[in-house]
Each structure stands twice: as structure tokens, then as C-alpha cells.
């Protein structure tokens, strides 16, 4: 497979996952805001912080308001990570690797594009039915995942796509947990209150983890939630589960399951085993924010290592097929 094409598939999947995550964050937050005291800053600022684009937001907006945040995260053309831009990029990437994906996948990504384009033109962020839009984005992305998994061969391209998807997912789960955990523990007087419960439930729902969490732990508790989202081996959006899936793809791509044969495999394996042999209490002792920050840094390094190991033009061409 061409290095350029592999890179494009990797990013196409990352962008789709990002768009889907953003839609879910906003949907949950919107729902939450209906039942909380009217403090827009407290409710909507963390959402922007999660995405890492708080500085950009401030440079474009003077105030934190619900509609402004939604516009910024969903439609803002100047925000490279807005849903609009993610879908636009995913589609441009899909177009560039049209020969690697199926008609079904292409047409669905194309349909998503028309959905966001239409939403942006109609200024849907001001609409009371914005949640319908979020639902359409979530469902639309999941339709792509489904088609992807049921129509595309488990070849190199599929594995690069999977890598992109789960690394993005791990990053987003860690960011949501980081922002919310912080915020929730900052207000100890409300621990155990009904308000608190709503907030913890919202955190789980932001990563579609509520149902599976309840089934496993029953009661909501901060450390169990953190354990579930970071260290669970079975829940497909936990950081560890994402890394396990990523590692499988990387093994297939590298062709060796013993040790490592490239830098990407080395770094990913190291992070995966670190999470496998750590206890949630160790993480809490170390400091949740510090630990999650470290994970995010390592995920970025893994992404660069994948780029260097597979996508970039090698100067040494000795390995001729």
C-alpha cells in the first residue's frame, strides 16, 4: 500500500471518530444543561477545554455562551477540529483513497458531508432542534463504522484505519475524563448530591459508557468511573481497550508479535503494559490530571512514530519487493 494512502486512511478514520465524539459531548452537555442551574460558563467552557482549542475559542469569541460554543465546535470554519472541518477532511481523505474503500463507505461519508454543509448553511446551532443534528452525526458516523467493518477486507488499509480510529478514541476518552473529573472533585460539598450524580452520569454518557458501567459496577463512584474509563479491558472506549485493539493492528502491520520491530510498536506496547500493571489507586495517588496528561502526550508520540515508521518516504530504499 502506498505510504501516502495509508496516512490518508489513518486520518480519515481519526477525523470521523473526532466528529462523532464532538457530537456526543455536545449532545450530553446540552441535555445536562437543561437540568442544571443556569450558569453557561460553568456548563459550556469545559467542553471547549476538553477539545484543546480553548485559546482559539477565546481569540474568536469574547464570551462563553451556549450557542457560541456549539457553533465553534460544530460549524466554525476557522476551528480546524470543528465537526464541519472534521467531516470535510474525512471526505477529502476518502476521496483521495477512493480506491481503498467501498462504494457504501464512500457514499455514506459523502452523505455526512452534505448533512454538515446543510447544517452550517442553515445556521442550525441556533435551532432548538440542534440535538437532532447531533443524533444524525452520531448515527451517520456509526453507519460508516458499520459499513467499514462489514464491507472492507482486513487488509493493510483496514488496519491503518483501525489504528487511527482507536488512538483518536483513547485520546478523547482521556480528555473527557480529565476535564470532568477535575471539575467534579473541585466541588466536594456536592459529593453524593443528586446534582453530583447527574454530572457523573453525564460524564459516562459522553463516552457512551453509562449502560456498560452500570452493568458492571452498579453504583456511581468517581474511582470506579475512572477505573472503567482508563483500565477496563472489555469496554471498547476505555483507554486500555483502545490500546489493545491498536496493538493488534500494529502487530498485523509490522508482521511480528514478539517484542517490537519499529518505534511505533515499541511505544504502544510500553504504554499498553503500563496500563495493564497499574492500579486505579496508584493513578489517583499520582494525580489524575497529571496521569491523563502523560497518557495524552504518549498517544501523540505514538501517532508520530506511526507516521515515521510507515507513511513518510524512507531515504533507504534497499527493501525492494
Amino acid at each position, binding site marked *: *500500500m*502506498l*505510504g*501516502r*494512502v*495509508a496516512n490518508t486512511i489513518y486520518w480519515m478514520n481519526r477525523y470521523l471518530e473526532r466528529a462523532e465524539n464532538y457530537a456526543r459531548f455536545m449532545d450530553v452537555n446540552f441535555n445536562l444543561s437543561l437540568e442544571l442551574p443556569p450558569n453557561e460558563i460553568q456548563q459550556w467552557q469545559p467542553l471547549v477545554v476538553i477539545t484543546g482549542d480553548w485559546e482559539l475559542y477565546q481569540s474568536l469569541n469574547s464570551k462563553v455562551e451556549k450557542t457560541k460554543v456549539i457553533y465553534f465546535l460544530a460549524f466554525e470554519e476557522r476551528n480546524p477540529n470543528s465537526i464541519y472541518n472534521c467531516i470535510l477532511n474525512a471526505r*477529502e481523505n476518502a*476521496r*483521495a483513497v*477512493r*480506491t481503498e474503500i467501498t462504494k457504501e463507505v*464512500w*457514499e455514506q461519508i*459523502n*452523505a455526512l458531508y*452534505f448533512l454538515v454543509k446543510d447544517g452550517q448553511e442553515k445556521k442550525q446551532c441556533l435551532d432548538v432542534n440542534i440535538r437532532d443534528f447531533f443524533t444524525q452525526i452520531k448515527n451517520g458516523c456509526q453507519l460508516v463504522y458499520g459499513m467499514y467493518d462489514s464491507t472492507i477486507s482486513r487488509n*493493510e488499509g483496514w488496519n*491503518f484505519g483501525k489504528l487511527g480510529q482507536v488512538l483518536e478514541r483513547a485520546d478523547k476518552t482521556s480528555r473527557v475524563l480529565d476535564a470532568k473529573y477535575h471539575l467534579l472533585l473541585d466541588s466536594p460539598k456536592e459529593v453524593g448530591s443528586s446534582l453530583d450524580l447527574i454530572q457523573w452520569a453525564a460524564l459516562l454518557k459522553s463516552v457512551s459508557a453509562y449502560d456498560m458501567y452500570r452493568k458492571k459496577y452498579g453504583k456511581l463512584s468517581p474511582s470506579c468511573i475512572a477505573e472503567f474509563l482508563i483500565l477496563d479491558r472489555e469496554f471498547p472506549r476505555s483507554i486500555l481497550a483502545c490500546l489493545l485493539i491498536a496493538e493488534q493492528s500494529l502487530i498485523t*502491520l509490522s508482521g511480528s508479535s514478539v517484542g517490537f520491530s519499529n518505534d511505533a510498536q515499541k511505544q504502544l506496547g510500553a504504554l499498553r503494559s503500563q496500563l495493564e500493571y497499574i492500579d486505579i489507586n496508584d493513578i489517583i495517588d499520582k494525580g489524575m490530571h497529571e496521569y491523563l496528561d502523560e497518557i495524552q502526550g504518549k498517544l501523540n508520540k505514538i501517532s508520530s512514530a506511526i507516521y515515521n515508521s*510507515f*507513511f513518510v*518516504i*524512507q531515504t533507504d*530504499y534497499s*527493501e*525492494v*519487493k
Partner: protein
Amino acid sequence: MVKKASKRCFKKGVNSLFFMLKLNLSEYDTKGYYDEMFDENNNVRPNYKLFLERLQKVSHKKLQSLQHATDRAQLSLGMTFNVYDDNQGVERILHLDIIPRIIDNTEWTHLEKGLQQRIRALNLFIQDIYNDQKVIKDKIIPKELILSSASYLKQLQGFTPPKDIWCHITGSDLIKGGDGQYYVLEDNLRCPSGVSYMLENREILKRTFPELFKKLGVKPVYNYTHILRDTLESLTDVEKPNVVVLTPGIFNSAYFEHSYLAQQMGAELVEGKDLIVKDDVVFMITTAGLQRVDVIYRRVDDEFIDPLAFNKNSVLGTPGLFKAYLKGNVVLVNAPGTGVVDDKAVYAYIPRIIKYYLGEEMIIPNVQTYICDEEADRKYVIENIHNLVVKQTDASGGYGMLIGPKSTKKEQQEFIAKIKHNPRNYIAQPMINLSRVPTLTEDTIEGRHVDLRPYALYGQDSIKIIPGALTRVALKKGSIVVNSSQGGGSKDTWILNN
């Protein structure tokens, strides 16, 4: 019949309104032009008979809703091209009119034979002008005319491409004149485009009129990409050749087609930067190292394929590609240097070229062409410029052209000066009345002018003409410009079994 119809109206309630408002074609105008559905007495021609019966059963409103479904289908398939007329690229679709162009088998067989003849002769001609130049020595065509053509590549002198084939993929532009006769208007031997529209238009129309295909006996076109792959593979002796499609990239207006063809053929779609030449062998850069490339269906013009051999500033090409080609280590499709045939001055000699190489009369005639480089012709052109279409020999796409009857005296004088200054650069042709085909308009169906681009594939053994074509249609009333940039659209072209 009447009784039955009224009963249905009554039953279907609201639908009956549509039924009653069915198409009225009594006003259909055929005056002054060859119409492909009706003859001059407004009798339906045999090839459109069954289609017209179907048409008369539906309302205009129903046709419009079918048309809208077609537009949506094109968008969802991503059949779009970018137009960069401002900062933001605008995505457009090439309008597909739902009324098909229908051609019967007798006409088609004639076209097929004519195109095969033409392509065979042109291929021999290209081989000759790069090698023995007998055609020049025998004074069939002036030496200067060939050597002065911008598309003649001197680097290829003495070169013979694999399997002696230069023009593997051809898409000549044909028209039907006022006399109902087909003419070749232009040859397209460089990188003819539009074949994806032939294929996708068909897929869409099969949803628009599903019941008609069997009823009329429409020849299928779906095997084009299979034949294309076979053709490409037949050009090399490598057992399982690695075939790729070379595109200028995602911003090229024909990118949809490049990716479509690559995907349908199961070939890798590459850009110049994905390839590297080592020791005159072409490789593509993959995640697992380098992989040799055997055949390149390139959609990049000669000038840009290799910055070392041609345009130094080209970023679309791959350094060393041309040398690898000359050494026989890779096949380029079409071969470089074929563009010399697209030169409009060479076009004028094609009847003589066919006669010279094949000893046959031309089956599909050329449009009569006056060569300004020849004295008698030049004199005629200057005297009759107000009745003629004057074309620059190395231009295309409607540029560098004077349409005599629609021009001012001043423009005519300007062109006369240009012709006198550089006669080699100009040819002239009489105005041709392009035939018309019924086309859906805002409120009815009217004739619109069309041309025809069939696609031919020249592989190791034979020249195959796919029974279908891209029909381009000038959507504006009275217009004869079919180019997509100037209000042109397309039609599905149905070739009937009998």
C-alpha cells in the same frame, strides 16, 4: 383505450391530475435541424418509437421528479468536479439529462467500423512519423507541418512503443450533421476524459427507466473497465503486472474519473510523488518498501510527466520516468507523443493518411477543412471568413476560435491578419448544424444540440469500441456549445441491439 384511461383517472384521484397533464409534444419543433427523435414531418424515427410511447404515458411533473432524483444520485455518488473561479472551490455536477440519446445498431456498426479504421491508420501514422517518415517522403503530408507541431516529441524519434501501439485509449468527438450523417470533428489521442460519465450515467438511468432497457434492447457498457484492465495488461509481458493510474491529484477537475477508473479496475491510484525511478525502473513507495510498476495509465499530459525530460517546473511528474519508458522498463498509456494527431492541421490530412496506410476510403468523413497553409485554401478562407469557423490548430476547448456568422467585421479582420501572419496555425471549416436530441426543459421537451464521444480501446489484438458513448448536450436553447464550462450537460447514450 380512452375509456380505460378515464377510469384510471377516477380511481387514482390526485394522480389523475398528473395523468391528464401528460406531455404535449405536438409543438415539438424540428425546423432547420436534423432531429434524432422526429423526422422533418414530425413522424417518430424508428430508434425512438418505443421510448416515445413510454414518454407519452408520463406527465412533465413526473419527468421532473425523475430528473431531481438523478441530480441527487450524482451528488451522492460524488460525481462532482471543482470549479475554481473564486477563492473557494465550488463543486459542480455535470448535469445529466434523463432523456437518453438512442442510436440503432446499423448506425452503430457503421461508427464502429469507421472508428476502428481511423484509429488503426492513426497508429500507423504515429509510428511512421517517429521512425521512417515515409508519409513525409512520399509527400502525403508536409514535413514542416509535423515537425512544427508543439506535440511532436523529437526525443521519440526511432522509438517503437510496446506491441507497436501508441494510442491505446481514444475518445474522438463526432457530430451528426444536418444531412443525418456522422462526421469526426476532432481526435482525442492524448488523455480523453469523460468515460466515467458514460458508465455512471448508465447506472443512474437504469434506476430512472428500469423497464426500458430490456424492452428496447440496450447494449450494456459495464465491461468497459474490465476491457480497459485487459488492454493495459496486454501491453507488457510481465506475468502479473502492476497496473497503476497516475493522476495529477485531488484538485484536478477529472479526479472523480481517475479514482473511479482505478477503483473499478482494482488498480492503485498514484500521484507523481508516490513514484520513484531507480536505475531506470519505476517503483511506487509503499508502507512495505518499494514495489515495481509495470504499466501506467497516466492522466497527466506529456509535458508534465517528467521534469527531467519536459517541463522543469512540473511538480506533478516523476523525475526519470521518461527515460525508464524509453528503456522499455515501463509502459505509458497513452504513449507520449500521440498529441501530434490532435493538432487541427494534421486533422485535415487524415482522409489522405487513411488512404495512404490502409488503401481505403474513409468510412466516417471528416468535416471539410481548409488548410490556411495551402495557398488556394487560404484565399478561400479569407474571402469567405464570415461563413466559416476558424480554429487555431494547437488550441482546444473552444479557445482561439472565430465563429464567422456570429462575429463582427472587426473580429474577422483580426483573424485575417493572424492567418496571414502565421498560416500554419489556422484551419477553417464550414458551420455545421449539429443534430438535436429531445431534452427535458422547464416546461416541456425540446430539441437541443449534441455531440458524441465514443471510447475505443486498442489492446494487443484488436480495437474495441464500447457500445455506448458520452453524449454532450448544449442545454441553452439554440446554443451549439456543449462544453461543461459553458452550460453543457450530458446524456446517457443507448445503442440498441437491432
